């Protein structure tokens, strides 16, 4: 590389975080370099073949409204669509799309190549270049230097990574790819707390060796809702089926007998794995009373024979994998294309970064994705886009772009990471969001659209769409509130047939829709014929009507919390002076240095009594200052 090359921002890593960081910086008009060991591997989905899911789907939409790429790619390459929790409350419905992995990666590469301000550089980054405590570029493995004004590290699982299939580990961050050496050692030497995490992936099977005829197929949904407001409303690829099978007692026997060959169980891997995504070894030992576990056979694309075996991630030796896989119905003669493996890698304890994702110790150095201890494509992409935006803001000397927990799942993610840190690969869950009823897929545009326009992340034309949606919703709400349903014979019968109760008097359709047992679709059976509305508009309105009372209450709770959000903790507060805090609490508070009392309360290991002590201490500080000034007056 040319030493004199000068970029505004360098993004290290071409995964889901890196892509969004690069694209965001490009949208904001900055010259960006993406440095990655293998350009052809940009946008690869290393593990499961799906984008979205509960809370994850929410984040994909948030990324999309901020002008991100993930939603566009997922929509374009979708080969099975599902709306999760469709039978549950609308606030917790999530979109999940299975992807053609090859097409998805190709989409990403083409997308980046088409961006005007982006340079793709093939190379392995060994170190970052520092000037004082400021990061000004990176050094490649051949010693070449690339200079920039800010750097975003999105190295995924690659830092000092070791892969295991059986007891013997080999260096590598992903099947067939080398680990990144040097970078995390440098960060450690700079004072960063660097630790190990572990994750795993199941075997990939040859489509032609599976007895599909005995397996139960699973179809996607017929109705498609794209992630992106910019995507066509229809699927663009043929849709595929997935299949279900189950492990058997024989499977479990084989696994149990060979646990001594599992690096996890031999203590060779010290990194902590994700509790919500346990290996089959874990499942068999921890839930020993169950003699069967579900597994899903998911095609990895339209033009590949590779089948992903969801739910059976393992790091047992290849021959043991062969043995136990063949005890699963349908897999009696299976050929494995790639064996499952575990990967152990370095991550930076995320309490060492700010909400902007900039590190506390090195200016203009940003971290995003698995390097911060998260798991999942969507979690990575969400951090990537925020890191990209904040890197731009840093070099423009603007205050950071920080969303709040009641605005976006992305904000919950970042706040959790920088406040609580994490002991396992962090996955987003709806239950992590205390403002869950407000953070929905259907209102993403409403939540973030205007912010995104203001930030220059999407064209101002989006405002028209936001306004038109808003108008349509308001009109529909008004119509529901004016048109009445009268207690005629057939109406009463229809209501009863739908498991509801007859009317006592004429009521508006809004009131009818408020009944939990009545859905928007039911209104048509009850004589509603006030024009046709797009499904997403109708859904948004239905939620508004049904949940307004609860949303109001949640808003009140949010307002209460805001009080603590507004109680700022002095930046230089010496926590060892606060009486009543345990040593551990002093340590945690001193590391995290929470901005507000509310953030302090979210730090794990900091007890509520500590918050009360802090509150008392803050009051005392206030009084002292007051007393001090009064004494001076006298």
């Amino acid at each position: 590389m040319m030493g004199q090359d000068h970029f505004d921002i360098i993004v290290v890593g071409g995964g889901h975080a890196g892509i969004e960081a690069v694209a965001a910086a490009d949208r904001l008009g900055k010259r960006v370099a993406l440095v990655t060991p293998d350009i052809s591997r940009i946008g690869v989905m290393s593990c499961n073949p799906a984008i979205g899911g509960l809370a994850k789907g929410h984040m994909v939409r948030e990324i999309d409204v901020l002008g991100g790429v993930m939603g566009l790619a997922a929509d374009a390459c979708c080969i099975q669509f599902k709306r999760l929790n469709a039978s549950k409350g609308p606030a917790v419905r999530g979109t999940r799309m299975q992807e053609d992995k090859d097409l998805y990666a190709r989409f990403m590469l083409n997308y980046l190549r088409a961006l005007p301000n982006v340079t793709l550089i093939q190379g392995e980054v060994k170190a970052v270049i520092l000037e004082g405590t400021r990061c000004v570029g990176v050094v490649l493995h051949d010693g070449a230097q690339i200079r920039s004004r800010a750097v975003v590290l999105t190295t995924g699982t690659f830092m000092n990574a070791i892969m295991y299939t059986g007891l013997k580990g080999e260096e590598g961050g992903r099947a067939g790819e080398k680990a990144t050496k040097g970078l995390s050692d440098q960060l450690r030497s700079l004072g960063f707390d660097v630790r190990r995490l572990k994750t795993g992936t199941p075997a990939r099977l040859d489509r032609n060796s599976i007895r599909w005829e005995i397996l139960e197929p699973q179809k996607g949904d017929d109705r498609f809702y794209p992630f992106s407001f910019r995507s066509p409303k229809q699927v663009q690829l043929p849709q595929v089926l997935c299949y279900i099978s189950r492990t058997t007692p024989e499977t479990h026997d084989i696994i149990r007998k060979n646990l001594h060959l599992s690096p996890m169980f031999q203590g060779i891997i010290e990194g902590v794995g994700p509790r919500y995504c346990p290996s089959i070894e874990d499942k068999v030992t921890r839930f020993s009373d169950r003699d069967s576990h579900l597994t899903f056979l998911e095609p990895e694309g339209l033009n590949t024979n590779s089948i992903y075996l969801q739910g059976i991630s393992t790091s047992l030796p290849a021959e043991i994998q062969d043995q136990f896989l063949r005890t699963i119905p349908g897999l009696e003669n299976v050929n494995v294309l790639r064996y499952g493996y575990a990967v152990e890698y370095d991550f930076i304890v995320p309490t060492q970064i700010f909400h902007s994702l900039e590190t506390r110790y090195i200016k203009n150095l940003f971290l995003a994705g698995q390097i911060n201890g998260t798991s999942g494509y969507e979690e990575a992409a969400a951090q990537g886009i925020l890191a990209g935006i904040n890197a731009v803001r840093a070099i423009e000397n603007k205050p950071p772009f920080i969303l709040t927990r009641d605005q976006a799942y992305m904000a919950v993610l970042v706040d959790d990471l920088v406040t609580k840190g994490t002991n396992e690969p962090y996955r987003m869950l709806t239950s992590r969001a205390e403002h869950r009823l407000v953070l929905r897929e259907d209102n993403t545009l409403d939540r973030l659209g205007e912010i995104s326009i203001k930030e220059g992340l999407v064209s101002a034309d989006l405002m028209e769409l936001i306004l038109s949606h808003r108008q349509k919703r308001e009109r529909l709400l008004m119509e529901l509130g004016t048109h009445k349903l009268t207690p005629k014979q057939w109406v009463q019968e229809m209501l009863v047939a739908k498991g509801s109760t007859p009317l006592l008097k004429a009521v508006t359709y809004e009131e009818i829709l408020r009944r939990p047992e009545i859905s928007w679709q039911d209104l048509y059976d009850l004589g509603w014929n006030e024009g046709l509305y797009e499904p997403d508009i109708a859904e948004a309105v239905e939620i508004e009507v049904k949940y307004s009372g609860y949303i109001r209450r949640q808003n009140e709770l949010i307002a209460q919390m805001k009080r603590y959000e507004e109680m700022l903790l002095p930046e230089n507060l010496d926590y060892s002076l606060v009486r009543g805090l345990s040593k551990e609490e002093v340590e945690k508070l001193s590391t995290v240095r929470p901005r507000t009392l509310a953030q302090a309360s979210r730090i794990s290991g900091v007890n509520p009594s500590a918050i009360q002590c802090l509150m008392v201490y803050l009051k005392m500080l206030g009084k002292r200052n007051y007393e001090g000034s009064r004494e001076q007056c006298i």
Partner: protein
Amino acid sequence: MSQITKLREHDVICALSTPAGVSGIAVVRVSGPGSWELARTITKWGEQEIVPRQTYLRWFYDLEDGEPFDQGLIVFYQDKSSYTGQESVEFFPHGSPVIVERLLFQLCQKGARIAEPGEFTFRAFLNGRLDLVQAEGVLHVIESQSVEQAKQGLRHLRGVYSQKLSMLEQQLVRVLAHMEADIDFALENLTTASQEQLREWMTSVAVQLDEMLQGAQKGRILKEGVHVLLMGPPNSGNSTLLNNILGEEKAIVSPIAGTTRDVIEGSILIEGVRFYFYDTAGIRQNSSDEIEGVGIKKALDLTRRVDLIFLILNPHVDIHFSEFHFLTDLNVPVITLFTHRDLGERRVSTPEYSLSTHWISNLKSDEAKALVVGLLKEQFLTRCPRDLSLMVHVHQEAALQKAREHLKVAVGLMDQHVGTEIISLEVREALYCIQKVLGKHFDDDILDQIFSEFCIGK
């Protein structure tokens, strides 16, 4: 207590920890960094090494004239082992107000200050020696006016109450865990608890809360005593019974109907619980006496504020049951006592507002008193199992009630097939309410209220 002084926790504070007045021995407690040095000065200690938690007999000196004014025991505590979690000293002077005042004066001369109400306990809380529930228990022990009440406070202090609540907290956390798992892991095909199971769990917590709230009612009774009203038509013998129960002539007794005009009050202890009795003007509709009329009105007011009413009737004179019909609408238990059993038990039907009826021959007899005491015991002391009779403060009671309401709403929503994410909101609020009582959910209001309620010394 003012916020400002409360927070100067590096001051040395001192206070009389035993009740004011004359006693054999009093306890004066001193806490804060420098307490030991202060005690050394006042006792002219010398070079001897201090062993914590050991009692020493020493003279207490007036430093003005250098003369000792009392001799007593003294104990030193290190910060780890003291009540407040700070360096502390306890003096045990003789319990004369003059001596105690002199000791406190000497301490203040040497830099201590008199503690604000609750300040010792506040420090104990700040230093992690007590949790909120325990801190409140201290208050109960101090304020207790009867043995049973003090026991309640102690039980509270030992964390029985916290344990019970923590158990409920755990149960709700489990409910929520299942609900959230069902939402967040929709794809994983988890076997989470069924709706029926969740419903059962929530109902069980609600029932336990109900029991605790009943216990709370009992706790309040123990703290505030039981209030019992004696009433009847004029000349029915209320005053005679009152005097019998109290064992003294509180009320003037005469054969003239309407002798008792004002409310007469007195109290006794039964098994450590204080019972207050009120004797009122006999109730009659057509009293022409204006003063008597005021008395009757007072009696009627009282019916709304007492815990139990004894209605005393002589079945051998004409009974105007209708005059007492208003009792039906009250939420107070009524027990009817028929007098003059010796004249024969006439067949009189139990009035519908009465819990039970009993016959008495002579209102002055020990038998009559024993009957009344027995009825009171049955009503207030035996029905409630002891371990449920947990002290609950008013704001705690409100929080538990709220928790129960949220759970009831949650169960109701479940029956209406409302989405789990909404139901979980209710359960979460119920959980918050319980955590609030446990001091686990931060809210500065609780702190302020608790510590303003504390009395001096502890």
